[in-house]
């Protein structure tokens, strides 16, 4: 069984999306592992990784998502394993998957160093499990080049089984290639693909936001898989907000306090896709009923408006099985832009 270890120097470069796209183009049967989980899903007293759940549900994988990770927290993994048992466990997992799959895709921690103390960082996993490493870099042009050249100059090892690099979320590819062609040509390893930036994949859904904020959803629980393209803090008067150009956009989410009935009414009249109520203040029942009637998700959180705006600003949109359009787009982008044949060879 071939093993593909997908890692990145930095967090949030789109490893999971890329794996999803690669898996979509893989002709055979594959299994997925994320030894050091970081996107927790707690359901019915069990914990698993969101990415493992996504891969499992999209590709009908044989094993449960809870089996695809060793843990999420250093203390938990330390409590259950030591260096040697981690290695034997990873090997055992690989052997188990080997029986019915011909490819094992392993997603490493959020950045290259993550999990080092537990021997669960990308390079340690490569050593423990064997397999071919693929590095993903992404973001603005300069960040991509920093990562590529840093890896090339300081980390790349000739004897290491390294397949190459995939550049993800690259804005204006022709311009990028023009600007950095010399540096790219000088790299000691191949570039397996350059995937263009797709704005559609950068918009969180209302569900992403609700989960990130640990919000209680008060209304329209079935209407959470809608993209959010604009986020407004409703701190001004309803009159003022109605005059804002951004307020006229579709697919907007409003952050306001539960005692701002005027703002909530303005938001539902302006067809917003969700309302986040801060400071745990419930609006009057008639307002909740009205929002429910309009099928707009109303979410209540403990934090104040500043903290919530900050959290949303920092959040990374996650792909869910409920977003088929996004999933199709990812598969298409990978298929068109990554030399997958080099990976499967």
């Amino acid at each position, binding site marked *: 069984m071939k093993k593909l270890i997908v890692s990145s120097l930095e967090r949030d470069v789109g490893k999971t999306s890329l794996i999803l796209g690669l898996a979509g183009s893989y002709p055979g049967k594959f299994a997925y592992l994320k030894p050091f989980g970081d996107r*927790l899903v*707690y359901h019915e*007293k*069990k*914990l698993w990784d969101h990415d493992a759940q996504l891969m499992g549900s999209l590709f009908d994988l044989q094993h449960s998502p809870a089996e695809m990770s060793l*843990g*999420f*927290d250093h*203390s*938990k993994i330390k*409590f*259950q394993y030591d260096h040697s048992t981690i290695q034997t466990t990873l090997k055992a997992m690989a052997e188990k998957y080997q029986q019915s799959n011909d490819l094992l895709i392993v997603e490493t921690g959020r950045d290259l160093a993550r999990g080092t103390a537990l021997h669960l960082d990308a390079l340690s996993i490569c050593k423990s499990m064997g397999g071919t490493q693929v590095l993903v870099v992404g973001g603005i042009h300069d960040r991509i080049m920093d990562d590529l050249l840093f890896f090339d100059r300081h980390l790349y090892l000739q004897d290491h089984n390294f397949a190459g690099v995939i550049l993800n979320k690259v804005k204006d590819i022709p311009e990028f290639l023009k600007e950095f062609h010399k540096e790219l040509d000088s790299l000691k390893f191949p570039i397996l693909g350059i995937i263009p930036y797709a704005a559609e994949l950068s918009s969180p859904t209302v569900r992403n936001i609700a989960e*990130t904020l*640990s919000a*209680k959803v008060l209304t329209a629980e079935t209407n959470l898989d809608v993209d959010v393209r604009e986020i407004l803090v409703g701190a001004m008067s309803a009159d003022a907000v109605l005059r804002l150009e951004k307020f006229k956009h579709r697919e907007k989410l409003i952050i306001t306090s539960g005692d701002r009935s005027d703002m909530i009414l303005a938001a539902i009249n302006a067809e917003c896709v969700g309302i986040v109520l801060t400071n*745990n203040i*419930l609006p009057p029942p008639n307002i909740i009923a009205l929002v429910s009637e309009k099928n707009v998700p109303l979410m209540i959180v*403990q*934090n104040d408006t500043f903290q919530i705006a900050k*959290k949303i600003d920092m959040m990374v949109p996650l792909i869910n099985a409920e977003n088929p359009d996004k999933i199709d787009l990812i598969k298409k982008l990978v298929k068109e832009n990554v030399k997958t044949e080099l990976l499967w060879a």
Partner: protein
Amino acid sequence: MTTNSTPNIKALFQPESIAVIGASSSPNKIGYKILSNIVSSGYEGLIYPVNPKGGEILGCKVVTQLSDTETIPDVAVVAVPASLVFDVVKDCAHRGVKFATIISSGFSEVGNLEEERNIVKYARQYGMRILGPNIFGHYSAAVSLNATFGPKDIPTGNVAIITQSGALGVAMIGKTAVQKIGLSAIISVGNKADLDESELFDYLRDDPGTHAIFMYIEGIRNGGRLIESLKKTTRIKPVIVIKSGRSKRGAIAAASHTGSLAGSDEIFDAIMKQCGVLRAENIQEALDWCKYISTSPLPSGENTLIITNGGGVGVLATDACEKFQVSLYDDKQRLQHDYSAITHGFGSTKNPIDLTGDATVQEYTSALGTALNDENIHAVISLYCETAMMTSEGLIEMIHRQNLQYQNKNKPVIFTLFGGHVTEVAVQKLLEHRVPVYTEVYESISPLGALFRFYRYREKAEEMISDPGINVEQIQNIISTVRKDNRQFLLANEGQMLLQAIGMTGPKSKIAKSIGEAVQMANEIGYPVVMKVVSRDIIHKSDVGGVLLNLDNGDEVMDAYQTIIHNCKSYKRDAVIDGIEIVEQVPKGTEVIIGARQDENFGPVIMFGLGGIYVEVMKDVSFRALPVSSSEARLMVKEIRSFPLLLGVRGENRKDIDGIVDAIIKVGAVSRQFPEITDIEINPIMVYDKGSGVKAIDVRVLLSKSERND
């Protein structure tokens, strides 16, 4: 010379002499109007107008300075500009005046709090008390003293008014006159810099001329003292209150459910009920109650009979009786026996007794007389719809006579008359004689309802309240530990220790600092367990995913541990997490909440409600000021709308209400004995079937910033 003694409040209401500082000869000046009112009201004490110009005003010799008065005035009315008030107060204090009533405004009501405080401080050093500032004065019928700048003629009667609003007070003098409500006293308290309602009650409670007290209040200075004073007063005479600002919620940090639910008005309302005070919705209702209650005898029981000549109005009255909690006499056989001779063939002997439209004066007289002499009937509502069967004179004479007979026999009666000219003439005449007549059913039965509420409160036996035994030393030790740690809240284990100190049982619990400890402790406690974050940065643990339930094995404990840490860090990245509490998961019962807090106005208050959504969404809670007796605690439990759930509905067993009452009293004792505990809230308390007790599942305790200074 300074003194710490406090003058008897009687000297304010019955002064032997009064000085008016700032008395003026100009009729447009307040100093003139007050002096004029004092002179014309028939006050027989010595009057000293004080004005540097000297001379004579309204026949009174003016003294140029206070020190020139022949005797030391009991009361000095201060009507000078605000800038001169402090000097005048100093003069009054040096002269030995007992009470200074400061009419002048320009103090705390406009932000000038410091000078107001200084005035009071100075006066108190000399044993002088201050009424006001920012008042229109006071009136006392006992000595015919009208020391206000309000209307000249105040009808004498037996209602005393205490008002915080000057303008409303002046208007009420006029309003009560129009409504034929005589006053025994009216006192404007204004900014309440020194004297407040509580001390005025000390006089009015024992004043034989006062039968009812009406208080208009905007804000409370010393709630604890007011409660004490009200409780004493309402045992003797009715107190009716109007408080403005019903809708305004107190500025209370929502650090606990108790805090967030304790809007100032909810607490005020609950405490007024607890003190037996009758709270009216509006001024008209309050005046209607005053008019009736101040003149009516108290009932000796709860049976009320309605006598009417119209079926429709009788039904309306029945509805009104239900609304205002007036119980109707229900012995149908006896009523038929007594009233069948008076009612016509198509009338009714059921309560309401319907004499039908052709009822005459004689038939009304007979029916009212029968009810008066029936010891089983304790109050009567007499309704009359105008017909051609009675003249104004006949009606007036009959009602007047019946009212007297009822008064003489100490049985409450109330008359409601509907109709045109004949009725209107009768109503006006009867009102002049202060007969309790009304022109609308609800308007008339509302005061009777208020009278019954007062009656019920008086009938309730006064209970001695003693705090239950709690381990004061242990609680003090817990607080000391928290103080040393520079915290203002108790951690989970400290909360559990506090529960033990007050004799409440909770589930077994331990605090794990690592995932290994968590698994070990859960194994020791036994499954299933609950896990809760212990963090100084997270108060509402459940709301941030800091509590996970029903964990059945070590794997679930490990997953829960990681999840709680993740959730709490997501809520607050830099949250200090002191550990995860592993708690025995107790069997499900009915969840209730008990919370106590130090209210800004009333001191320690306690809240009870059903837990879960009932407290969060329905806000189905009851409040009391502490201390509470066990019967008061039981009333708190009964008062919530969802009380039937505790009684057992749909096959459920009755819950352990005694256990809840016991917990209320214990939590109350902690709040009372430890004023530095600003909030203590046990939520949820699991209540089991009757006799099976209660278990405190979670407790949250907050301390004040500074150490206890009681």
